[in-house]
């Protein structure tokens, strides 16, 4: 442990931490657009700058390690001024469409501009005018909204390990592209959407979705229902519909998902869902009430059991259902029907 001074107060923090991490642990909020605890520090957005006693220049706290006796100001006049200038520059080259931007309400640029009182970009001049890449089936990329924090590129290479995208060109012309700028659909992209999940602004957004605003939805933490990894995620709920999925920053997936977990949720509210019990009469399914369906099943069970005993019954329980349901299902067969003929698709 070492002692450092932040905003005039003494704190004991662990060695080898960055100033940003130390502040986060203490509860001092430092704005940042390019920082992600899972990624190598990148120091691109420069919003996390702080003043360090004895240093002439402001330092990016995401890459600055704490040192014994360090004196740090996180919200001095100079720091605030620098942050305001950065936000001003960013917004000066950003489309002004928070009115209808899908990211509005969940946008870090919008939140920081609000917090730091940047009402409009004051640097008039050339603005980016790139076509939007709609070629991926699940998300789109709008280079005009991109603030070049590089999170998407780094998640794709450092965490997902796909390396589908990179930053190309220099200076004003820089943008995120698939190699040789040939479009996302022609890249190695596996549509995991992990880039979309980390984009702090409206540059990478899910496509073909129900229209919703971020302030209209509630988030329900749950476990993904596809493979056995058991990724933790939030279902985004608007009214009685699931309108999106976001990965949770928790074990075992730590903010990652795959194409199915992230984008394949539309089956839930699909029109083909079975909505009422069906009973086959003369080779055709007819709608029935639950009571009717239960009665038919119960009578059939009694009839067959009376005639042949319990060993002619079999149940296939499900690797898709919950533990509680599997427990009850085998209990139904063993304790009520009285057979051990219960199995499931563990072998498939």
């Amino acid at each position, binding site marked *: 442990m070492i002692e450092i001074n932040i905003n005039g107060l003494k704190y004991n923090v662990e060695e080898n931490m960055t100033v940003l991490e130390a502040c986060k642990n203490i509860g001092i*909020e430092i704005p940042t657009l390019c920082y992600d605890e899972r990624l190598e520090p990148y120091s691109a957005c420069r919003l996390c700058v702080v003043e360090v006693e004895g240093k002439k220049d402001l330092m990016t706290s995401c890459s600055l390690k704490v040192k014994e006796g360090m004196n740090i100001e996180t919200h001095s006049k100079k720091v605030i001024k620098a942050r305001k200038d950065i936000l001003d520059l960013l917004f000066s080259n950003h489309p002004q469409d*928070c*009115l209808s931007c899908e990211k509005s309400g969940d946008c870090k640029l919008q939140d920081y501009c609000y917090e730091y*009182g940047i*009402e409009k970009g004051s640097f008039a001049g050339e603005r980016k005018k790139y076509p939007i890449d709609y070629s991926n089936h699940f998300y789109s990329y709008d280079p005009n909204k991109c603030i070049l924090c590089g999170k998407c590129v780094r998640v794709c290479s450092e965490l997902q390990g796909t390396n589908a995208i990179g930053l190309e060109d220099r200076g004003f012309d820089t943008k995120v592209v698939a190699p040789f700028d040939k479009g996302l659909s022609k890249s190695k992209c596996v549509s995991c959407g992990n880039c979309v999940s980390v984009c702090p602004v409206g540059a990478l957004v899910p496509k073909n979705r129900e*229209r919703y605003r971020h302030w209209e939805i509630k988030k329900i933490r749950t476990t993904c229902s596809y493979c056995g990894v058991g990724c933790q995620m939030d279902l985004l709920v608007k009214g009685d519909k699931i309108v999106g999925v976001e990965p949770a920053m928790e074990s075992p997936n730590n903010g990652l998902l795959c194409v199915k977990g992230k984008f394949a949720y539309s089956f839930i509210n699909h029109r083909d869902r079975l909505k009422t019990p069906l009973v086959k009469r003369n080779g055709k399914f007819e709608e029935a009430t639950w009571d009717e369906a239960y009665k038919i099943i119960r009578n059939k069970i009694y009839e067959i059991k009376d005639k042949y005993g319990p060993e002619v019954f079999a149940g296939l329980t499900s690797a898709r259902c919950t533990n509680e349901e599997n427990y009850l299902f085998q209990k139904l067969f063993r304790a009520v029907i009285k057979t051990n003929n219960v199995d499931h698709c563990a072998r498939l």
Partner: protein
Amino acid sequence: MKNITLTIDGQKVTVPENFTVIKAAERLGIDIPALCYDPNLEIASACRLCLVEVEGSKKFQTSCSLQAKEGMVVYTESERVVNIRKEILQLILDNHPNDCLTCQKAGECLLQKYAYRYDVKFRDHGGEKRLGLRDTSSPYILKDDSKCILCGKCVRTCNQIHDRAVLSFAQRGFKTKIVADGDFSLEKSSCVSCNRCVTVCPVGALVDKRLIGKSRIWDGEVKTVKCKVCDYGCNFEVLYKNGKSVAVRAKSPSNGRPLCLKGRLTTELIYLDNPETPYKKEDGEFVEATWKEVLGLGDIFEKIIKIDDGK
């Protein structure tokens, strides 16, 4: 009261005969857009956004004022209606500042909501725009005429309390605006900072100044609390950001509740970790004040302590 049955967007609904179409639609879960309509205020039919098509009638009708009738067949989202709404919204946006980025109202703004719903965006145009006239004289209310859509809700709610009636319309045409007592700043006017107008404003023209920069609707939890100052028990909301209570704001008063500054300040004092300095009006000027002063507590604490200690 007699019930009547009408058909809205193909669905039949039975409602009391004094219902308007907009209210009947609500029963079906159909949300007809409206900027100037408020069930607690008298009907104005000013924004025209709630226009609907009625079978047998050539003209569009404003559903906020249209009485539901037996057998009536109404369409709320026909192509023609939608086109008119788009036009209305476009005209409003043409004369509205593009600053949802930092607007305090973002996330709760009806103009933003409907523009998103009908896919209408800001556009560049050569026409005139109102200048950014902001009345910053009050520490409690920020009045920004450039964002005003002239729905008149603020005027109507202010006038519901007889001894207030501060706000009114002034001038005509493009120059029409909302003014306080003729045309004074909120500071110089007789405004008592009750914030009734703020609670009904559908856009960012009247906002609670003590909220600015602190929290927007998506930033955190919002909890409703009841004011403990008088028997009316007006509702306030406590806003949270990062788990901390950062601001209090008034909720729209219904059932003849007046809403007042004292109630709001008391609620701030009770629920906020770090309430901002309060202000009081003295000779037509807002001045910083102590909590004792603004809440009219005088020496009451000393008196309480003295009595309690004496026991």
